[in-house]
């Protein structure tokens, strides 16, 4: 007897062309719990979704627990080194089988009745199996797992959408931008470290809408801009290039398809070693470590100091991975009006010793430069996200506008690869992202799990 999987989404009950228009979207996208529920399958898991970084599970049997949408999952390297994302959900009666944030384990034993699973997902045994008439070797008793897991240069993505194109194809031109971000580091790699962890009472898309938004900076971050320059003669530190006429600055925003976008502020900065360090804001130990690194490296010191400084880019991979500065920010929806935003720090790895022993000092500085924005910038954005969520309670005034730049001749340019480029304050990246979002929501993909190890 065939039993249904229950995995296919119900056909859409919303009129997506009415909810997502060329210049605006409806408040329900941010406030309707039913739309949120649909996103948790159509978007999170429906498309390639970031779940972990390889450096979090460096050895066989290492695991972390996280979520794919709301599904609790264990991302691990199994006993043979295969990367998997197991559902953290006992096949007996549903308890989580792993309750630690991270660790190393060959098996997971459910704490409720003791069913035990190998880290391949396979059921290894149950207490007193004689009590079962069914064959416990049947695949249906293995932990469910995400059928498709692919990694791009350390970033592990998962999808339950069997029809999804391969990850690199999905990322498309985004891979080149990820490459550039990684390749400024020795060995082309970074290691995740501890995080600044923030939460706001607002929809997850408010943070994604903000990710390439060059329009808000001068206003939302006014206190940070003033603070960063309080000890200086002229305004030159940090994000000062937003202050006067950000549209005229050489920085730009770009849409690269499938909800992914990129804000590139590097053209504002001189293209020379030491230029990033020169605009880095004050931070603990700055002057001491700078002189120590200069003594050690001489005229190569700028290369090391630039690694401690923040890279002026926002690389946003829909729906939940935002690589910005030296951070890897991950969005985790909790509810329609609650989102966790975790800003993982990254450390430089220097196995070849290209920094001639300076890597520890570089990382020490880098920890301090990374603490700045979550402390003095993101808290103000998060407050604005919460205030949007409050504002959107006004039912009769439902529209959220994102038409900055729309219809101005020559402002938004599309190149022969289809990449769309506009001034940094343009909202074209939002309009295009919602076009992709609408496709996912209007035509929900078929989701599948796998139980074969």
């Amino acid at each position, binding site marked *: 007897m065939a039993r249904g999987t229950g995995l296919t989404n119900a056909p859409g009950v919303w009129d997506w062309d009415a909810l997502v228009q060329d210049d605006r979207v409806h408040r329900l996208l941010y406030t309707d719990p039913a739309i949120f529920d649909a996103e948790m399958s159509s978007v999170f898991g429906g498309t390639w979704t970031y779940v972990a970084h390889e450096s979090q599970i460096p050895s066989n049997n290492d695991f972390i627990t996280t979520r794919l949408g709301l599904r609790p999952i264990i991302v691990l390297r199994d006993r043979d080194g295969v990367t998997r994302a197991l559902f953290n959900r006992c096949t007996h009666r549903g308890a989580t089988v792993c309750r630690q944030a991270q660790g190393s384990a060959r098996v997971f034993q459910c704490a409720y009745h003791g069913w035990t699973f190998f880290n391949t997902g396979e059921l290894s045994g149950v207490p007193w199996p004689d009590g079962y008439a069914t064959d416990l070797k049947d695949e249906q008793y293995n932990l469910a797992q995400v059928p498709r897991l692919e990694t791009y240069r350390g970033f592990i993505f998962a999808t339950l959408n069997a029809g999804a194109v391969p990850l690199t194809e999905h990322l498309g031109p985004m891979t080149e931008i990820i490459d550039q971000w990684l390749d400024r580091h020795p060995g082309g790699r970074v290691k995740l470290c501890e995080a600044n*962890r923030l939460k706001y009472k607002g929809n997850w898309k408010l943070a994604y809408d903000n990710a390439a938004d060059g329009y808000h900076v001068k206003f939302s971050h006014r*206190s940070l801009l*003033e603070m960063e320059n309080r000890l200086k003669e002229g305004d030159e530190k940090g994000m000062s290039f937003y202050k006067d006429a950000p549209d005229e600055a050489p920085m730009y925003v770009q849409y690269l398809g499938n909800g992914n976008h990129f804000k590139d502020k590097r053209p504002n900065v001189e293209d020379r070693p030491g230029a990033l360090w020169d605009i880095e804001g004050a*931070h*603990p130990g700055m*002057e*001491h470590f700078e002189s120590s690194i200069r003594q050690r490296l001489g005229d190569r010191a700028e290369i090391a100091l630039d690694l401690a400084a923040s890279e002026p880019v926002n690389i946003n991979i829909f729906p939940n991975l935002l690589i910005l500065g030296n951070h890897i920010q991950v969005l985790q929806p909790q509810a329609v009006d609650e989102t966790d935003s975790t800003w993982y720090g990254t450390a430089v790895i220097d196995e070849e010793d290209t920094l001639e022993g300076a890597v520890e000092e570089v990382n020490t500085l880098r920890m301090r430069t990374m*603490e700045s924005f979550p*402390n003095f910038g993101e808290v103000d954005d998060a407050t604005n996200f919460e205030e949007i969520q409050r504002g959107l309670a006004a039912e009769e005034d439902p529209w959220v506008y994102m038409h900055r730049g729309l219809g101005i001749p020559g402002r938004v340019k599309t190149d022969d690869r289809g990449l769309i480029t506009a001034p940094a304050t343009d909202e074209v990246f939002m309009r295009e992202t919602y076009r992709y979002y609408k496709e996912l929501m209007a035509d929900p993909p078929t989701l599948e799990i796998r139980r074969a190890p």
Partner: protein
Amino acid sequence: MASSPDPSRSSHYVTDAYYADLVVDFTDWQADDRLITEAATREACRAFLEHEARLLDTHRFEDWLRQFTGECLYWVPATPRGGDPRREVAVCLDDRRRLEDRVYRLRTGAAWSQLPASRTARLVSNVEPFATATDDILMVRSNFTLHEFRAGESQLLAGWCAHRLRRTASGFEILVKQVNLLNCDQNLRNPSIII
């Protein structure tokens, strides 16, 4: 020897040795045989911490800064044991200049996360001073709960502090304040107040 640079303007004292000492000073310091039982010292520490709590609850941030030494640290680790700040980010790790930055930002009139400002009430208790290898330096453990009300909603922060204090002619000054939030490794909503 040249006079040391002004720590409000440049950060020369946060060195590798400073971090190394910090990690040592804040590891395994709560030994029973170092606990100070003498009533006058315990009372002085309790009064000092209550005063500090009042300065923060009443938003007297500039007066609060004056409780610290020039070369000071305000540290809110992001992991329960504090770890080594050279290798991990913290919720906050402010030297003198960054601590002044923090207060400056709150005073700009544009720190939206604190407009309106949080109203807070801190309860400080279980104050236990411990002797260190240096005569005039104490470590003090205290527990706290911090009720915060802002923008129509309340939240509760709780945890314990470690203060590294130096005796002065008139009382104490803070060398390091370490705030250990119970939920330091969890996602925090609007962590924009000074804890």
